[in-house]
């Protein structure tokens, strides 16, 4: 597994503990106290490092190659997953997957951006960057969920929509616009979870639901910090500063009132314990879906539209020039 710079002290300590264990076993020595002491130290160190991540370090954690991808979450969160493919217009996009599943026994529609676990998979999945077909498939499955009155759960983890010739030729902009609008107009509950990178319009295409949840070390941003630094400062090296300035971390987004809940991750991030990370996500999803389940359709829709209507109103001001 690839490690990040700031994770190095954690990895070193982990290695040391494991070596000590092997040593103790081989030499039949009792080093229990020493190992317990180091394990406690490891816990503290991990907590300390992960509680003090800078926004840029969070970006790196959100992009961590070992971070559970959406397929891993699907395995942990649902039973009976059945993939449904294709946009019925042009093709199937492997970068955005969808299907049916059961969540705590209830049928739901699941949509998510899918990154690969390695280079081969990433080439197949286009690094989680969808083409218009992906957003059109998402829209098709959302409308289907509406017909059968199934809640929609989306899992967001994408650098953004793909920028390429085919994507433009086949209507990337309109595909995203319609995915967003369809989601906003659904008469069935929609809960979105940002599990990794929530990049730009490509993320929002799956994010305009009743609730937007985000994992502790995930990020949500208008553009990548690298692109922001390049466009605004003509200096991609300033991406750490860009990450800071853009307010993209879960905590910042909660403070701005953009996300409804920050879902905790295991110490050291979701990649250290995917099963536990998924358990936390499942618990939050269940709670939000329960809250929404009791609402009449019209009320659900009214609240969703009102949420986006006033999402930034705290920052607007009327001058008396009219």
């Amino acid at each position: 597994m690839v490690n990040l710079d700031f994770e190095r002290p954690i990895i070193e300590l982990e290695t040391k503990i494991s070596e000590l264990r092997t040593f103790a076993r081989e030499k039949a020595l009792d080093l229990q106290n020493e190992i317990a002491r180091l394990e406690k130290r490891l816990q503290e160190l991990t907590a300390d490092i992960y509680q003090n991540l800078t926004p840029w370090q969070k970006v790196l954690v959100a992009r961590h190659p070992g971070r559970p991808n959406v397929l891993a979450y699907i395995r942990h969160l649902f039973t009976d997953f059945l993939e449904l493919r294709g946009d019925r217009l042009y093709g199937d996009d492997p970068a955005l997957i969808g299907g049916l599943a059961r969540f705590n026994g209830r049928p739901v529609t699941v949509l998510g951006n899918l990154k690969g676990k390695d280079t081969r998979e990433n080439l197949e999945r286009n690094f989680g960057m969808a083409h218009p077909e992906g957003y059109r498939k998402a829209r098709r499955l959302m409308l289907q969920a509406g017909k059968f009155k199934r809640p929609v759960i989306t899992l967001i983890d994408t650098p953004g929509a793909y920028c390429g010739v085919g994507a433009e030729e086949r209507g990337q902009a309109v595909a995203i616009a319609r995915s967003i609008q369809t989601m906003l107009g659904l008469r069935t509950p929609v809960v979105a979870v940002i599990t990794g990178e929530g990049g730009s319009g490509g993320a929002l295409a799956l994010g305009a639901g009743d609730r937007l949840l985000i994992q502790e070390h995930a990020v949500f941003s208008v553009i990548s910090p690298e692109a922001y630094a390049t466009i605004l400062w003509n200096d991609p090296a300033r991406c750490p500063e860009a990450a800071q300035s853009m307010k993209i971390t879960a905590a910042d987004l909660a403070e701005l009132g953009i996300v409804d809940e920050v879902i905790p991750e295991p110490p050291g991030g979701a990649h250290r314990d995917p099963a536990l990370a998924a358990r936390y996500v499942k618990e939050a999803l269940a709670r939000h879906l329960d809250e929404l389940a009791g609402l009449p359709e019209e009320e659900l829709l009214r609240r969703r539209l009102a949420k986006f209507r006033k999402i930034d109103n705290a920052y607007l001001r009327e001058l008396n020039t009219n």
Partner: protein
Amino acid sequence: MLSILARGLWTRCPCCGDLRSAKELDRSWKVCPKCGYHFRLTAPERLQYTLDEGSFREYDQGLTGEVPLAAPEYQEKLQAARQATALPEAVLTGEGTILGHRVAVAALDIRFIMASMGTVVGEKIVRAIENACAKRLPLVIFSASGGARLQEGVLSLLQMAKTSAALIAFHRAGLLYISVLTDPTTGGVSASFAFLGDIILAEPGALIGFAGPRVIEQTIRQKLPEGFQRAEFLCRHGFIDQVVPRPRLKSTLAQILALHREV
């Protein structure tokens, strides 16, 4: 010669290179008489060319934003844009008449930080939609934009959802929205309200797309073909209803409005 160009009395056509006087260009709706190049219009020019004289009533002129996550140099950039354009923000909204048809209207101004969409632009668009809805007016939006107002961070991204949400009630009310795409319409604006019209028109040669051509060239490491992402290209691919030359735009809008007039 340079001094005349600098004083804005003469303009060189970026397409054919001909020099044109300001007066001549104004008479030709800022379309080059020789090659047909459509010069970009400011929002006030757009309203002047589109609405019946003296019919415009502006909405929400005094709306401003205080974005908590703005990039450090953003305030100065806003000030400079306000000074250069004499506009408070990148969009003008209001109502007026087009050959007698009353409409709610919005026009984005590309001079103002590339008419990027931040909280104020999004809010003014939403209020124009809501006003149109309340008064049962058709809506005409002239889009032009580089995309999201990056300096406002994730709040700018959310304008895509905010404007799209407002259009849900509008469409449900059975009202008409004509979206006119002008040069350039990209990013978060193209991926939200600009492509959610009942009828989508575009001006000749307008650059329209999700990603800008530079970003695509960097991604695919190839030069893009001539005409890629231009209005005619989008029309051929089925994404807009018609490419309408500017001199015919007002009458085309009036024709569509007449065909939708409530009886």
